[in-house]
Every structure is written in C-alpha cells, then in structure tokens.
C-alpha cells in the first residue's frame, strides 16, 4: 500500500504524481522501490479523479475485508 500512500502525499502537496516523484517519496521512507509498480501506479492514476476515488467507498472491499478478518 506504500505506493498508494506516496501518491496520496503528492496529491496533497500538489506535486505531480509521476514516476520520479513517487520514487523519491518511497526512497525517502527507505522503501526498496520497484520500478514496475511505480509505473503501474502512475498509469493507473492517469485518468482517475483522485479526490473522487478516495471518497467513493470501494464497494466490496470494505465488506470483504471485514468478512475476511
């Protein structure tokens, strides 16, 4: 989940969510960064309205997670 958190910090700071910035944040936290995961994250977020995606409860997950817990 650390990759997603990194994107969320950038979203709040206003810096662009690109591969360099995500990598920099993760490295500052001592994460052993995998380039492909960074790429995938940036690609996945490209067309996403982050604010909206954060707020709209991902339907199943919550339920599923609690069921699985």
């Amino acid at each position, binding site marked *: 989940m650390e*990759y*997603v*958190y990194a994107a*969320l910090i950038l979203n709040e700071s206003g810096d662009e969510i690109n591969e360099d910035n995500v990598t920099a944040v993760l490295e500052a936290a001592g994460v052993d960064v995998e380039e492909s995961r960074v790429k995938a994250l940036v690609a996945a977020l490209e067309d*996403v309205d982050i604010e909206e995606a954060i707020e709209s*409860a991902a339907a199943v*997950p*919550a339920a*599923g*997670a609690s069921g699985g817990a």
Partner: protein
Amino acid sequence: MSASERTTETIPEWKKEEVEALTEFLRSYDSVGVVNVAGIPSRQLQDMRRELHGSAELRMSRNTLLARALDEVDDGLEQLSEFLTGQVGLVGTNDNPFGLYKELEASKTPAPINAGEVAPNDIVIPEGDTGIDPGPFVGELQQIGADARIQEGSIQVLSDSVVTEEGEVVSDDVANVLGELGIEPKEVGLDLRSVYSEGVLFDPEDLAIDVEEYRADIQSAVASARNLSINAEYPTAATVPAMLQTAAGEAKSVGLEAAIESPDLMDDLVSTADAQVRALAANIDDEDALPEELRG
C-alpha cells in the same frame, strides 16, 4: 547593558554559580518547560522527579534566578520568563514537547482537597455503599447535599451527588466528609504552563494531543488508500483480495442476470427461480390457483 552589568556586580557569588548551573542545564536540553509545582507535597515531588528521570529533568530555584538563567541563554528561551510566577520549576527534555506533556499528564496523581481550596472540578460523592455504619455521619452527608440514607445496615449514597461545584471554595464540612470517605478530588502533578522547543513556544493547549484522533486519522488514511487503490484498479497486496471479490461478485451478478447455465451458478439460479415463483404466488389471491403447500 549597563543595568545588567550593575546587577551582575551586586549579586553574590553563590547566585552567580546557581545561574551558571541553571544556564548549563538549559543548554543541555532541546525543550524547556515551565511547570507549576504549587500544592505538591514534597514527598510526591520527589517521586515525580524520580519518574521523570531519564526522559526529563526538573530544576527549581528562586524565580529571579530562573529568569536570569533564561535571559542568559538568550535564544528565545527568555520568552518563558513571563510564566515564572508562583511556585514553579523548569523541566528540560530532549524528548519532543508533545511527549513531555503526555508524560507529565500521565504522572499526575489524585490528592485530597483541603477546606478553603477552590474546587478544580465538580466534586462528586458517588452513588454506592459508603461502608460506614449508621450514625451521625449520615446527617453530615445530607447536610452538604449528598443523597444519603441508612439502608441495609450501612450508610448509602443513592445517587451521584455534587457537593461542591467547580470554582467554589471547599467548606470545612465538605473537606471533612471527603476525608472520611477517602475521596481525593484533586489531580496533583507538574502542571505545564509553557514549553519552548527549538524556536517554538507552545501553550499547553497546543500540546494536548488527542491520540484517538490520530488513530482515527490513520483509519481514514488507510480507507482512502484502499478506496483509491480499488477504484483506480491498482492492486496491492492489501487490496487485491477485495478486487478479486468485486470481480467474482460482478461475474456472479452478470451470470444470474443472464441466467447463464453454468455449474457455478446453478444453485443460485434454482434458488432465484424458486424465490421468483414464490414471489409471484404471493400475489395470487385465489387459493384454488395455488399449490397445496402455499395455501393458507
């Protein structure tokens, strides 16, 4: 400048040494706070010093000397001087000031209150059995406003009773009753008035962090990340199970909607059909049209 030179000339050697020692103390810590020590019995104060040992250090001296030492260090610490009134001490710590505040709060202990003191909060005699045998004490309780009766062989308080409101002066009678019952309504400890830490002056209100709020923030941050991960279809180890569930749920929903004759769906299709036939049957008023099992 000349004024300070003049005072320096006039102060005795022991004071100079004391100020020097205090200055050294102040310089050795990242954060320095002023604490109110009024009303703390000396033995309790000793205990607190010992508890702080290792994370913080408490120093007391005459307020004028404390002020002089604060001035001497002169990197912003002098801002603490205004809090040097009454019985105070200085605490130094390399912990962060929020941590210091938490520690001081945690070290506070209950203490009895004396007649003539101002109640720091509502003083309550709690509902319950006082364990005291019937006698004149029940009258004393009633007199200060406690809902007390003799019941089942002892004096009982029938409901939580406020006997002195916050800000009122504690009377002799109340102090006596509280003493008799062993109620300690005060919280005694080092009361932080202000902390100066690495360039910033903190009020106690700034330092009172709500741990529950941070816990809630973490939960909300985690929820946001989960939502983003799933909504953006960026799988992580934490969210991929949920995404699998979503996908499986979608497939099932499509399969049922289309009544796809798949072995995985047959149980559900049969039960859906059954539910539908029952739902329709429930709309039929004429019993003659219904199968025996559904007739009223």
